[in-house]
């Protein structure tokens, strides 16, 4: 008896089959030498030993076997009348098979496309990160020399022809602000708004902020014969925010306003509403269409104009909107084509809460003792004279070594330490005192802006830093903060 399982393991077994399809495959002349190896497609033959497993045992059907000529057949096996006979019936299912195969192929192709898409997405993400890093690194390269140029322009401006130096300075400033925007955009793209932007909050003096803005833009506006007005319509003289980020926002908004205004004026007004500061930058420039307003905050979008104003990276408003959000605020715009625009930056008003003692200079200190380490006798005598007004035991040292000895002996509540001391430096003395008198609040005093800023980031050395030159008012305010 021919077992189907045996038959389907012998591709070279001679078959006595006369079927139209087989005749078509082999040709009449070869029908005598009919074997599976001659009938079947090579890919089927490759899997020949496993064919039996694919036969439906109930119906004896083997589905979609591909023949040598490419056609697909369903093969039905049945035991013949005699035990030596195995009936085989072929049914051409090519059309049906092709449809199924097409679907299968489509599915496979879709899977491949999906995989490729994921890979491409990953590659794109990596490329984007690389691009961001590249932009970031090249922008840093730009910023350093530009900052030097600006610094030297500041010096030159005081002693030479103001106009030309101001022009150089303003151009360099413009480049720096553009580079800063690109850097921020790269950082936000790579790390997101949350991690891409760090806020460093401190007190902002409204008058100083306006002065700074005026310094930056008065010349630029005058060059275009534009009026430039700044107006504080509040009685807020100081508040807390990130001064650098706020200035960056205002510089972007006012810079744009001047850029796109050919006549008339640009103004900055500060208002207050519902415990929010409202900075409004108004211009009498091109104005925006509804379509332009919709796109204006998109990265790299620039409003088309007939003037030469289309320079810039097209990132200023994107960055400003993101920064506004980071400052828990909002940036909005109102505009009318041909009339002008108002960009409104709204940020929460963080007031400076002064304690009673901070408001009253004659209020007593909680501290009972203070150590002053200062080698400049004029400063030493004056600070001592002023502080002796209060009920404080004052210990004065002229060197770090002397200061350490006094701190060990008296364990003072407060200490003022000059950085620049003969012998051991103020920073080293502070470290020693931290160990020997851990409850002493340390106020460092430095004439070096750079060093002061660096140390502000390291509270391990000092609890606060006071930059020289300082007034007695500055000193008392800072000491009050430490006198908790």
């Amino acid at each position, binding site marked *: 008896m021919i077992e189907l399982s045996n038959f389907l393991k012998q591709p070279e077994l001679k078959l006595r089959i006369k079927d139209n399809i087989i005749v078509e495959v082999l040709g009449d002349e070869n029908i005598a030498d009919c074997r599976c190896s001659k009938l079947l497609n090579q890919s089927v033959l490759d899997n020949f030993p496993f064919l039996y497993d694919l036969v439906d045992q109930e119906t004896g059907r083997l589905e979609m076997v591909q023949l040598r000529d490419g056609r697909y057949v369903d093969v039905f096996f049945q035991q013949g009348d005699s035990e030596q006979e195995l009936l085989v019936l072929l049914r051409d299912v090519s059309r049906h098979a092709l449809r199924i195969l097409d679907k299968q192929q489509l599915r496979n192709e879709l899977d491949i496309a999906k995989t490729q898409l994921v890979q491409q997405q990953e590659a794109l993400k990596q490329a984007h990160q690389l691009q961001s890093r590249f932009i970031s690194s090249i922008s840093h390269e730009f910023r350093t020399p530009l900052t030097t140029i600006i610094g030297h322009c500041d*010096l030159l401006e*005081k002693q030479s022809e103001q106009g030309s130096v101001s022009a150089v300075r303003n151009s360099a400033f413009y480049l720096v602000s553009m580079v800063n925007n690109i850097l921020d955009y790269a950082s936000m793209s790579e790390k997101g708004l949350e991690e891409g932007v760090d806020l460093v909050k401190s007190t902002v003096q409204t008058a100083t902020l306006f002065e700074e803005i005026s310094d930056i833009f008065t010349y630029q506006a005058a060059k275009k014969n534009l009026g430039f007005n700044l107006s504080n319509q509040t009685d807020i003289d100081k508040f807390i925010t990130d001064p650098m980020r706020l200035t960056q926002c205002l510089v972007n908004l006012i810079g744009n306003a001047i850029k796109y205004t050919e006549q008339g004026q640009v103004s900055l007004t500060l208002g207050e509403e519902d415990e929010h500061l409202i900075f409004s930058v108004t211009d009498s420039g091109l104005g925006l269409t509804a379509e332009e307003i919709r796109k204006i905050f998109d990265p790299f979008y620039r409003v088309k104009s007939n003037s030469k104003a289309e320079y810039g990276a097209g990132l200023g408003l994107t960055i400003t909107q993101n920064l506004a959000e980071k400052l828990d605020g909002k940036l909005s715009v109102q505009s009318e084509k041909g009339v002008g625009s108002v960009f409104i930056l709204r940020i929460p008003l963080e007031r400076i809460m002064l304690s009673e003692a901070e408001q009253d200079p004659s209020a007593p200190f909680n501290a009972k003792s203070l150590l002053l380490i200062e080698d400049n006798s*004029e*400063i030493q005598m*004056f600070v001592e004279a002023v502080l002796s*007004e209060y009920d404080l035991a004052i210990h004065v040292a002229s060197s770090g070594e002397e200061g350490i000895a006094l701190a060990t002996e008296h364990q003072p509540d407060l200490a003022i330490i000059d950085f620049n001391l003969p012998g051991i430096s103020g920073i080293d003395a502070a470290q020693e005192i931290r160990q020997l008198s851990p409850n002493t609040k340390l106020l460092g005093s430095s*004439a*070096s802006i750079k060093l002061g800023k660096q140390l502000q980031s390291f509270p391990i050395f000092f609890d606060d830093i006071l930059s020289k*030159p300082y*007034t007695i008012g500055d000193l008392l305010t800072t000491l009050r903060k430490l006198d908790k």
Partner: protein
Amino acid sequence: MSAGKIEALKQAYAKSLTTKLATLEQLYQHFIEQTGDEPVKALHVFTHNLSGSAGLYGYPEVATKSKALMQIVETSYEVEPLPETQAEFNRLKDALQQAIQEKTS
């Protein structure tokens, strides 16, 4: 402590401004004419002290200008004096002269 002591200190400081101006001119001359770190250090320490004390005693202009000169002098440890050093020196000198005039008038 008394307001009198602070006033006395302020007066003594005002009187010392003339000496400070002379010292500044002398140190600056050394700084320009002599080589090595010593004249740089002397001028640096002087402007550092002047900047700190002038702020406290109520001469903000002198303090600011002195700090500006100090910062430029600071760079002279590493490089040749920058061309703007002279201008900063002149500005500090003017501020000191102005402060002296205001006190005497």
